């Protein structure tokens, strides 16, 4: 507990550094492009339009409001995937900094997750713009969206801390992370719906830790309903477990990171 308290005061002290890293990364990402920051909105819209066209042809009308369904699952998933891919390399990338100056190492995965969280929120904004003409329900359930986002971000941060440490010790992990994410993506009902699967294999989805989170977004954004309490509780439990394990893994190896660069 003392460690957690010490970390909290340290992170509070170094919060401006995190802030700066996030702003810088966002700025560099869109530097010198004509549309600039507008790309954060435009890019997901274009990507998802293509996907919606392709998959709605493949599945025909098997899924209700397929485009909205796809967007509702895809936008959060992109946040998770980008966060983990970034976190895997965040320590290695900042080698120059880590070898020259002391910073609490937690700053690095935190900055990556927050950067992606920002683009995630902007993409959600784009999603809202699209939702209306596509006939999505705008309801009170949207008020629950911040809770879903917060839980999902904590889940991503926990996993991010794990991959950050793992990849610094074993450089092969970085490559595996993207492969694993691709497999995980297809194992999660994002482009298809769970009801399209045969009854006897559906239990497998309950083993997928990302499923309750994605489910929350789909229920809120497509069905315009509040997610079931059990889904929320399971998601909260998984987020807490991810954060706890990630934090423990990170802290126990934090001191050795500098020697592995």
């Amino acid at each position, binding site marked *: 507990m003392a460690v957690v308290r010490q970390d909290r005061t340290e992170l509070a002290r*170094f919060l*401006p550094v995190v802030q*700066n890293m996030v702003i810088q990364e966002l700025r560099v990402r869109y530097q010198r492009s004509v549309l600039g920051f507008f790309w954060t909105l435009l890019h997901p819209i274009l990507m998802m339009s293509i996907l919606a066209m392709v998959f709605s042809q493949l599945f025909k009308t098997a899924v209700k409001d397929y485009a909205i369904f796809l967007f509702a699952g895809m936008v959060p998933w992109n946040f998770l995937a980008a966060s983990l891919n970034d976190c895997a390399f965040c320590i290695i990338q900042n080698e120059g*900094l880590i070898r*020259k*100056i*002391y910073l609490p190492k937690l700053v690095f995965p935190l900055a990556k997750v927050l950067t992606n969280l920002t683009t995630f929120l902007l993409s959600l904004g784009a999603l809202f713009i699209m939702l209306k003409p596509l006939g999505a329900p705008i309801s009170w359930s949207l008020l629950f969206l911040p809770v879903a986002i917060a839980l999902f971000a904590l889940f991503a941060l926990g996993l991010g801390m794990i991959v950050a440490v793992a990849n610094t010790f074993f*450089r092969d992990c970085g490559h595996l992370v993207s492969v694993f994410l691709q497999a995980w993506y297809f194992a999660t009902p994002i482009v298809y719906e769970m009801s399209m699967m045969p009854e006897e294999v559906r239990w497998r989805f309950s083993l997928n830790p990302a499923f309750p989170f994605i489910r929350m977004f789909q229920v809120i954004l497509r069905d315009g309903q509040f997610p079931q309490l059990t889904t929320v509780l399971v998601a909260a439990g998984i987020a807490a477990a991810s954060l706890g394990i990630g934090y423990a893994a990170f802290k126990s190896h934090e*001191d050795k990171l500098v020697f592995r660069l």
Partner: protein
Amino acid sequence: MKTNWYSDSDPARAVERKPGAAAAAPLVELRDVSLRFVSYTDKQYSLKRAAIDLLLRREGPPPSTDFWALRDINFSIAKGERVGIVGTNGAGKSTLLRMLARIYPPTSGTVTVRGNVAPLIEMGAGFNPELSGNDNILLNGAMLGIPRKEMLAKVKGIYDFTGLAEFADLPLKYYSSGMYMRLAFAIATEVDPDVLLIDEALGAGDAAFIDKAKARIRGLLDRSHVVVIVSHDLAALREMCNRGIWIKKGRMVADGPIDEVIDAYLAETAPAKAG
């Protein structure tokens, strides 16, 4: 603020202190500190390598070598002491400084540093070349753990010292190395660190600036902070320090008044000149 690190091999050796004793306690304290570097000469050692070793019936010990960069270092530095660290190249001077800056945690022993530390170990550590001089001052302050408000109050003082006010909005990537260095030095010394760590910082810059820098370090010392300097410029060390530590192959050989330590060091490294 008090900072302790423990190696993973003996995590329980905490040195607990009563808060009341902190005022009299030395600002820097090292106890039986050792640091081992393991160099992973073959980072590819993995499943693939293990399989090949097995196939070729090679002996497969993890191909890593280790050496002790620092061995059994013990010293403490009280307020107002200016310590010069001497030693040949590769003796472990810079490693020791990095340990004081919390960059390297010790393999065993405890390092206690009280107060905030300003490391001038590598020029412009934490500078972002894309940002303007002004933004970098604030960013660097943040990395040293100084609140933005406090840092804003210091901006003027930094420009007074460096004379770089007209370049405040210029991105750092267009600065010359001398300007870069001046800015880094000014920030580290403007923040009133309790412990200032300098590694060969005085080599760069023009003559006028070196004099200004020396005056500034003396100013810092007058406000009774700790300064630790690693340098090969023995004349400068004699001038600025009052205590010397001689490191040889990771071990402390001598610790005492600066002149005695440097004389002994010179007597061994350059006997012809000394005699």
